[in-house]
């Protein structure tokens, strides 16, 4: 039995306080990814299965290099947000939740940076 009122008991609960910001970043990155995904499918996807020399030559184009770097970095920010949304929906238990939220975000940032670095290194002459 608690003597708190209904209002007193629920105040401050039920919201992560940053929901609108996360939602907005999701929309912002999705809009950016529309043209970037098409550029990636157009310029980079055909290089899968090709030769190393063809790939090096393709990334000499600033357009291909820049759109690919943007695609990779923004895609991983979008993925980090999406995975966070899935994790908070399905994972219960504080310890597991924190471990998964921290690890997915760090891995996504690491992957985004690694992909961007790889493209930059090729573009500047691997």
């Amino acid at each position: 039995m608690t003597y708190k009122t209904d209002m007193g008991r629920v105040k401050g609960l039920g919201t992560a306080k940053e929901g609108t910001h996360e939602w907005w970043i999701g929309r912002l990155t999705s809009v950016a990814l529309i043209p970037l995904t098409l550029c990636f499918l157009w310029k980079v996807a055909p290089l899968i299965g090709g030769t190393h020399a063809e790939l090096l030559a393709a990334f000499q184009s600033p357009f291909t290099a820049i759109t690919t770097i943007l695609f990779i970095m923004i895609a991983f920010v979008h993925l980090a947000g999406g995975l966070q949304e899935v994790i908070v929906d399905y994972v219960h238990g504080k310890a597991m939740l924190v471990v998964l939220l921290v690890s997915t975000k760090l891995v996504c940032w690491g992957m985004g940076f690694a992909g961007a670095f790889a493209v930059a290194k090729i573009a500047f002459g691997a």
Partner: protein
Amino acid sequence: MADVNRGKRPLSPHISIYRPQINSITSIINRITGVAMSLAAVLIVWWLLAAATSASYFDFVNGLLTSWFGLLVMFGSLWALWFHFLGGIRHLVMDFGVGYDIKSVDFWGKAIIVLSLILTAASIYCLSTF
């Protein structure tokens, strides 16, 4: 009064009692395709890192991506990408508050499934030709 019926309140009906509808199906496919593309995203980064390292390392990773299993993952992810792409655009449109009537929801739900398959087939054709 604050503790009345605490812990015995009815829960929101569990998902299993609902009949699947086109909008719930496209919703969960959008989520599954998003999560599933994590694998392809990591593979593409690995592939680019290999290309930035050496020709022989690139040939190794490139060979993995174009093995029968690699191609299965790549073509599966291509469909996931097109579905998530179309589903995402649909979400952005619906954020403006349009397309919520039942006719539109049913039509566009089916349309993005069909369109994603057409775009996947078309892009596999383009990728294998050029």
